[in-house]
């Protein structure tokens, strides 16, 4: 459920509403940022920037244009990509190794209570390579269908349905159906 009440209060500059939204979204937004940057320190920095930006531009969120989560996602991806152009990012050679979100998931052992760790681990096991790539590009990096089709060299018309199948698998193992 999207917390519409909370978002409305947040847009009226209610700090406690903002705190609750942060509680709800900070971890998943951090996950998206980290899957782009692969650097804890920089990711934390960007995460803070993203939420400060959200607070300062709270009025620009419009529920008719999309989900609040989507709005935050877009801010986060842009901020993370901006960061990849920064000196501090480029100076760290480790960052240059493009890792898929699944690589991060495979390496990770302690999940927060918000995550169905067993489900996620199961999901990685059943995930096809093409699913890894499609979700990596569309969700984590915010590619368009066209960019994704070109990057993976698959027909444009199949991107949407392929992705749907990949997400359905995720929902099945997590029990969100």
């Amino acid at each position, binding site marked *: *459920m*999207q917390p519409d009440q909370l978002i409305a209060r947040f847009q009226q500059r209610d*700090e406690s509403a*903002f*705190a609750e939204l*942060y*509680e709800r*979204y*900070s*971890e*998943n937004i*951090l*996950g*998206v940022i*980290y*899957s782009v940057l692969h650097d*804890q320190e920089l*990711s*934390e920095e960007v995460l*803070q920037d993203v939420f*400060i930006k959200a*607070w*300062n531009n709270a009025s620009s969120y419009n529920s*008719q*244009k*999309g*989900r609040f*989560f*989507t709005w935050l*996602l877009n801010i986060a*991806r842009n901020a993370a990509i901006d960061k990849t152009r920064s000196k501090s990012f480029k100076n760290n050679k480790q960052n240059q190794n493009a890792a898929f*979100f699944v690589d*991060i*998931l495979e390496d*990770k052992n302690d*999940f*927060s209570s*918000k*995550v*169905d760790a067993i489900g*996620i681990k199961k*999901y990685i096991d059943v995930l096809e390579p093409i699913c890894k790539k499609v*979700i990596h590009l*569309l*969700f*984590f990096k*915010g*590619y*368009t*269908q066209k960019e994704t089709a070109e990057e993976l060299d698959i027909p444009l018309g199949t991107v*949407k*349905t392929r*992705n*749907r199948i990949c*997400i359905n698998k*995720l*929902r099945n193992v*997590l029990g*969100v*159906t």
Partner: protein
Amino acid sequence: MIDIQAYIDSGVLELYVYGTLSEAESLEVSRLVALHPELKAEVEQIEAALQQLASAAAPYTPSNFESIQAKIQSKEGDGVIPLSRKRIPAATYLGWAAAVLLLVAVGYQFTEKQKLEEKITTIEREQILQEGKILIAEEDLQKTKALLDVLRDKDVIAVPLGAQAIAPEAYASIYWDKETGKAYVDVRGLPTPPKGKVYQLWSLTLDPLTPTSMAVLNQYDTDGTQLFEIENPNASEAFGITLEPEGGSASPTLEQLYVLGVVEP
């Protein structure tokens, strides 16, 4: 009326949550989602799954909200004029302190700057001096080289002039280029002439003995080389140097003959 299931199966809702649709497409999906609870439920399930997936990709639980709160509050304070009177004196003192500090800093910088400027002037002066010295040294070197070239020339004859009774330690040399008519006389081996006297160089033909004045060496000791360049168009058979009164004499004072040497045939 749209086919809800077909719309869901198309996969457009996933892209809607991703935020990868165009603005127009997103507006259309939002409109339909608001109209159809089935679509809304589907969107929320997709979102819930994605949030779990994204959270799982987070390397750790992010720091708590306080860090953000501190930042947004300090930012909000920027544009606000404080009403509290207590803050004014504190700010004033701080202002004065800053001004004094600035003044001290500026004063220090100024003296440092002056010191540096003085240093630069001194160094520049020294440089000019050194450049002058180098120039003189180069000129000297060139002169010496030119001289050495002359002495080494195969056409030049060296004529040693030996000591006479009046000064048994004295000696001199003539280097003479018959082709160009130039001669060099080296008088380093002669004693410094007494005040009011000068050395005079004579070209001699021997049979009969006829002296011809070549030069009065009145520039003696000016540049320390004691080497003089002289025109000698004469058919000299010998050279002699006598001590004469200032300005030289028309004929040599033979009692004052210091050195004498014969040109080897």
